[in-house]
C-alpha cells in the first residue's frame, strides 16, 4: 500500500469523524437489524470510541466504512450475548412480515443459527452486497454465499414440511 493509499496520520481522526458522521444512521440501522433493539443508537455511538483507539490500524481508506460496520456488528453481538445470559423472551429484529407465505417468516428467520440469520438480514434485509456483508461480519464472500444458500434451504424445508403437515 503506497503512502497515497493510507489514512494520513495527522488526518486520521478527521477522516474517521467525517466517515462516522456519514454512516451513523447506517450503523444504527445495522445494529437494530441484528437485534440491538432500542440500544441500536447507543451502540452506534460507541463505535467511534473503539474506532478512534484503533484508527491507526486502518491502512486503506476505502475500507473504513466496512471496518466501522464490523465494529458495530461485534458490539451488537456482545450486547446480545450479555442479554441472553440474563434474560430470555422477546427479541426485536427486522424481517419481512407482510408476505404470502403460510408460515411466519420472521419466526423462521429468528429460528436460524446466528450466522445465517445475520447474513440473510444484511443481504436481503439491508441490501448489502455479499462482499459488504462479508466485510461487516468478518467472514469470506464465499461463506456469505454458502450461508445464504443454507438459510434459504432451511426456510424452504420448513415451508415444505408445514404444507405437507397441513
Amino acid at each position, binding site marked *: 500500500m503506497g503512502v497515497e493509499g493510507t489514512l494520513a496520520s495527522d488526518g486520521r481522526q478527521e477522516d474517521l469523524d467525517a466517515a462516522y458522521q456519514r454512516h451513523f444512521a447506517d450503523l444504527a440501522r445495522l445494529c437494530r437489524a441484528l437485534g440491538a433493539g432500542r440500544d441500536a443508537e447507543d451502540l452506534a455511538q460507541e463505535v467511534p470510541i473503539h474506532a478512534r483507539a484503533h484508527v491507526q490500524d486502518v491502512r486503506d481508506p476505502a475500507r473504513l466504512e466496512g471496518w466501522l460496520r464490523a465494529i458495530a*456488528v461485534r458490539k451488537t453481538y456482545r450486547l446480545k*450475548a450479555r442479554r441472553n445470559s440474563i434474560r430470555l423472551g422477546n427479541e426485536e429484529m427486522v424481517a*419481512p412480515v407482510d408476505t404470502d407465505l403460510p408460515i411466519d417468516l420472521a*419466526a423462521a428467520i429468528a429460528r436460524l443459527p446466528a450466522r445465517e440469520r445475520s447474513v440473510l438480514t444484511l443481504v436481503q434485509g439491508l441490501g448489502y452486497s455479499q462482499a459488504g456483508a462479508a466485510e461487516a461480519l468478518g467472514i469470506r464472500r464465499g461463506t456469505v*454465499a454458502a450461508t445464504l*444458500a443454507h438459510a*434459504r434451504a432451511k426456510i*424452504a424445508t420448513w*415451508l*415444505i414440511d408445514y404444507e405437507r403437515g397441513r
Partner: protein
Amino acid sequence: MRRFWQRHISEGDLAALADGGAATAPQESHLAGCPRCAERLAAHRRIGRALATEWVNTTVSVPHARTAPRAALALPVAALAAVLAAALVFRGIGGPATPSQTPTVGLASETGSRPPTPPPTPSPLPSPVVPVELPADGLTMNSIHWSPDGKHVIYAGLGWELLDDAGTLLKRVPLATPHYVDVMYEGAWLDSSHYAIGAEPGTVTIYGLDGSEVQPPVVYRGHTVNGPGIVGNGRGALSVAAAPTSFVVWANGSASKDVPGFPLRWSPDGTRLLVATSSAQDPGSMADGAWWDTVALVSYPDLEQTATFEGIQLVANVDQGPSIGAFLEFSPDGRSVLSTGTRRQSAPGSTGAAILDAATGRTTFVPDKLGAIGWLPNSRLLVRPMTVAPGPLQEWDGSSLSPSDLPPTTLSVSPTGALAVAASTTDQNVIRFVVDGTTIMDLQESAMEIDWSPDGSHLILVGQPPDVAWALSLISLR
C-alpha cells in the same frame, strides 16, 4: 478426506434459479424428472419473493432453544452418548426426533404452532448398527479428519473436537458464542499419535494423544478458496500455508524453507504433495460463479516440483461451501488425482471430472455423459451415467470402461471396497448400507457427505435427518 457428490441440484443453485437465474441443460433435465428438486425450487421461489418484500422492525418470541444442545455438552460424555443412542433407536423405530435437535419456535402464522412432522418410516430391517449422533452440526464444523489408523477423528470449524472411534469426546475447543469470531480452526494429522490444529490467523499447535502440546514457530495463513492450507501426510510431516502462495513443511521439530504453492493433498505414501500454483482466481462475478486455480506436484522431502498440469483449471463454485481442494482425491495407488471440478483453459465454460496423471502431468477427462463417484480400492474410477434415473455403474481406468457390480444408486464406497452406501431407489431420503450385497441398515436421512476412516470400519455421516437441518453421526461397522 472429504468426499462430496451432487445427487440433486444444490440449494445455492436452486436459490439462484429461483431468483431468475437460467438453468443449465443438465439442471433442466434433472428438474423434469426429480419431484424433490422441483418442489424445492418452487419453495425457493416463494421464499425469494417473500424475502424481497419490505423488511420492518418486528418482535419475535425466541425461547433460545438453540442453546440447549450446547448446554447438554456439560453432561458426562458417556451419559450423553447413551441418551443420544437411545433417542436414535427410538427415532429409528418410528418415534419423534430428539427434542434437543428441534428448536421449537412457532412458525405457523395461522395456528400459532407448527404441525408435527409425520414420523419417519421405520427401517425395514432390524439393525445391529447404532449411529452415535455427534454434538456438532454440519454447518459450524466444516472439516472432518480421521487419524491414519482410524482410531480418532477431529472435526473443526468455529471450534474443534477430538473424539475416539466410539464417539467419546477427548478434547475440544468449544464452538464460539456468539458465532462471530476472529478465529477459524482447521485440523490435520501428522501421524496416528499427533494432530495439528491451525487457528486462523496465526498459530499452529501440535497435540499428542499422550497430552503433549507444542506450538512450532510456523505462521499459519490458511483458508483461501483453495482450501484450509494445513495438511498432514500421516507420516510425521505437516504442510502449512504461510501465505496464499507459499508453504512450509514442519517435520521432526523443524520447519522447511518457504516453498511456492498452496498445500492441498498429500499422496497416500506421503512422498508427494499436490499444491495450487497461484492464488485462486476470483472472477468477481456471481454470473460465472467459480474460482479456479492451477496445480502441481511437489516431492517430499526434497520439496521440488515434479509435475505440472498444463492447460487446465481446477474449479469450485462460489455458492458451494467446499473449497477447490475438496474436489481432489489421490487414487489409492497414488498414481493419479481425481479432480471433479476441472475445465480446459481453452474451453472454460465446461467443467467436468478428470484424472491427473501424477507421473506425466497429463490430464484425461472422464468420458462425456459420465460422472465420477470416486476411487475404488483397485485405483479404478467408479463412474455413473449422467441421467436423471440411476443407471448401471462402470469402472474406468482412464482409457476403458468395464461394468461394476455395485448398485446404481451407490453414493460412496469404503476404502476397502467391502461396503457401499446407496440411496434407496424408492425414497432418496434413505441411506442404505450394503455389505457384500446384503443390506444391513437403512437410515432415514438425506446424505450430504461421508467421511470414511482409512480402514473403512467407521464413517462420519453429514446428513439431514427428518426435521433436523444438519447432523453429524458416527457409525461403526465393526
